[in-house]
């Protein structure tokens, strides 16, 4: 299967933060969720894909083309939806559309009108007068109307009510019925991913923790519940995070068989949700 997006050894250095060794691959026709705590580097990765910031090292290929060397060709095929979009706030929607449409050879005006009607977009209203959900839908309408093959969404569901969220996710699922299209979306609301994503890429503190098909995540990661013996030195390498509860100790592992070998009975092993993984791995970190 061809890759919609392929990132290798991506690196970006800031004064107080380094994004490093990021490599993952988004297969065409799939949805990938990009998760991680605030400040982990998700938005940085997305900005690097769009070349809004310059990378320090590594490669980014979109449909096989380097995203800098072929910037125009790449951007013509990307649709971008952002939680806090860079917008000229007091322009009416229809003006924004008129300003942007000519840049895309594949612009489909009829499709845009149809989507506007479906989404209930008030085209005469100014961007800043819209509710958050409608702002997201507008961006999505723009992206779909130029037949974007790769949709990149940065926290699109944050701040949306569950109704809007589900609608948006349903719409994304519809979009990839067309197998040429792919979606990358970063989010905090991990429950959205559990229902929609095909694969999950987890970023923590500037590094890649894993990039796996969703089912594999479920099979590999687990929360082990037991007593204080889980904290034994001999088991150190097996666990990625600990929590103390009133009932005992919980520990996160990505290697259940090894844990079972190391410890005898009396173990309760639960599948770890993505939220669990994020919370366990953040132990002791000073989050932003």
């Amino acid at each position, binding site marked *: 299967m061809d890759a919609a997006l392929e990132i290798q050894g991506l690196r970006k250095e800031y004064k107080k933060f380094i994004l490093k060794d990021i490599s993952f691959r988004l297969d065409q026709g799939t949805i990938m969720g990009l998760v991680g705590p605030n400040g982990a580097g998700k938005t940085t990765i997305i*900005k690097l894909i*769009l*070349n*809004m*910031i*310059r990378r320090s090292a590594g490669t980014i290929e979109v449909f096989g083309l380097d995203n800098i060397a072929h*910037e*125009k*060709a*790449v*951007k*013509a095929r*990307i649709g*971008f939806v*952002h939680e806090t*979009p*860079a*917008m*000229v*706030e*007091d*322009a009416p929607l229809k*003006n*924004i559309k*008129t*300003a*942007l449409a*000519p*840049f*895309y050879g594949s612009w489909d005006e009829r499709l845009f009108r149809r989507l506007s009607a479906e989404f209930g977009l008030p085209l005469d209203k100014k961007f800043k007068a819209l509710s958050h959900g409608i702002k997201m839908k507008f961006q999505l309408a723009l992206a779909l109307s130029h037949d974007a093959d790769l949709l990149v969404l940065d926290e699109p569901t944050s701040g949306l009510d569950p109704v809007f969220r589900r609608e948006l996710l349903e719409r994304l699922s519809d979009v990839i019925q067309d197998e040429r299209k792919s979606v990358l979306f970063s989010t905090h609301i991990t429950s959205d991913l559990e229902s929609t994503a095909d694969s999950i890429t987890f970023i923590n503190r500037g590094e890649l923790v894993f990039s796996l098909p969703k089912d594999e995540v479920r099979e590999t990661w687990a929360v082990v519940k037991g007593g204080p013996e889980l904290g034994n030195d001999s088991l150190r390498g097996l666990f990625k995070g600990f929590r103390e509860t009133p009932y005992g100790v919980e520990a996160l592992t990505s290697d259940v068989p090894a844990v079972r070998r190391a410890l005898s009975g009396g173990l309760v092993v639960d599948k770890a949700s993505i939220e669990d993984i994020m919370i366990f791995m953040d132990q002791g970190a000073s989050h932003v």
Partner: protein
Amino acid sequence: MFKFVLKDFFLHKKYILSLGILYPLYVGWFGSRLHNPTVYALIAAFMYMIVALFPYTREDKLKAVGLSLSLPATRREIILGRFLTSWTLMIGLWILGTAVALFIPGGKLGASKLLGLGTILTILAYMTAFLAAFMPLVVRFGMVGIMIFLVAMQVLGIVAMLLRARIRNLKVIIGSVGRGVAAAQEALGPAVAAAAVLIVLLIVNYASFELSAFLFKRKDY
């Protein structure tokens, strides 16, 4: 490339239209009260340049540059688009302003002065000077850059006034553009002068473009 002009126009339509009416009116009226075509050219160029750069200082303030960056266009093209839009606006405004100046009764500068080759070249020269100076500043520092520059100019002006002896020098510097154009006309005759001046202006614009594109390319958003 015209799509860039269209984009900026539609994104900032309200502002462009309202400023686009106010400023020419003001300059036109003001211009009709002046004797000196060079001073008129200076003021007109300055005011129109402000309108021309307005979309970009706004975008910087609103952090809306990201919008242009998500479009299939290179950063170089985006800057070229800015220059195109700026010139389109400035020329358009200048036409309007001149019309106002011509039709307001009691104007001191007649048609011959307003539409004379010397005046035209002088205005273009001042426009070039301002745009070339400010565009890289806006790209690099945004709105803040312009503010700093203007404040610095004010300070210089005050200092100059305090050191009265310098005032004449200031006038000399500012007037040099106008005199340069006049001198060229005298020396080379109108047609050649026009060509020479235009070539010089083109080169200055191009230099500013290259600098702006360079600065823009290096910026992280």
